[in-house]
């Protein structure tokens, strides 16, 4: 192939390539957006779930924990904690923090009301039912 590969050609490949893949990504995102509410049972997002989600955000839970593997790696995965521990344990656990055990990683004391704890549990329960392609691989998260 006779070739003079100019800077202009390289620039065009850059611009063309970027536009090309951006279009593909937009098409895939459109499809994904339709699929997500089905996969995560959006119809089960009750006001309690929404309220629980807001509490998780504004108390920066993922500053120590992970949700779907995203967050910090200081504390356990919360995606399947509802299945791993159950509502009663989760509420009791949060209420009893910090443990104060010497050297052990400490969780702050959050002054959640009973209603707020129920909301958080509702959110964690909803999370545990999202179709995450069989992740985590086991109950330990």
């Amino acid at each position, binding site marked *: *192939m*006779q*070739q*003079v*590969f*100019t800077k202009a*050609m*390289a620039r065009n*490949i850059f611009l*063309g390539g970027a536009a*090309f893949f951006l*279009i*593909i990504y937009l*098409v*895939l995102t459109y*499809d994904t957006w339709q*699929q997500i509410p089905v996969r995560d049972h959006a119809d089960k997002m009750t006001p309690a779930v929404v309220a629980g989600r807001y509490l998780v955000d504004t108390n920066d839970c993922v500053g120590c924990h992970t949700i779907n593997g995203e967050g910090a790696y200081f504390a356990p995965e919360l995606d399947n904690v509802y299945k791993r521990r159950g509502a009663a344990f989760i509420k009791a656990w949060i209420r009893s923090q910090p443990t104060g055990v010497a050297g052990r990683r400490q969780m702050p004391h959050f002054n959640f009301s009973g209603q707020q704890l129920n909301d958080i549990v509702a959110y964690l329960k909803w999370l545990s039912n999202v179709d995450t392609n069989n992740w985590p691989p086991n109950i330990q998260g």
Partner: protein
Amino acid sequence: MENISDPPHALPGDFAIWVFIFAELTVFGVLFSAFAFARAAHVDLFNQSQLALNRGLGAANTLVLVTSSYFVARATRAIKDGRGLLCGHWLTGALGLGVVFLALKLFEFHQDYAHGITLSTNLFDMFYLSLTFFHFMHVLMGMAILAVVAYKAYAGRYGVEDHAGVETGGSYWHMVDLVWIILFALVYVIR
């Protein structure tokens, strides 16, 4: 401004265009390998789902693309003789066939969707749609390149000595054609 320390034939440009060709071949190679790998693990599913494909449309599209490649080859021959206008006409013909390909493919996608085939129905459908859509985008890209080349051919911007653009654009189109042939054989035909 030439870099004095460059040896005469080792232009950085040659290397750079090959980076892109390598990238294209790599990505399609990986996609086809992934398809083969997935097929090996789900032979029955793949054979079953393949039956829902419109092989007639696929074959027609193969014919369309191969013919368009022939037109592009004629266009290159024309410009080597310095005949810009004729080159432009052959390229326009190729573009016309490109439009036919896109139309047939879009019709096929429409049919697929009507039959409930989506990216999420099963693994075969995911591959079929991904591969053909990715190729579709390449046909679009190739047509954009051919259109620019055709315009320049008509405008008399190429000559007997200077027509690298026609060859480069033509090569890209031939690559797109070749990929389709492999795709058609792998996805539509082989059982």
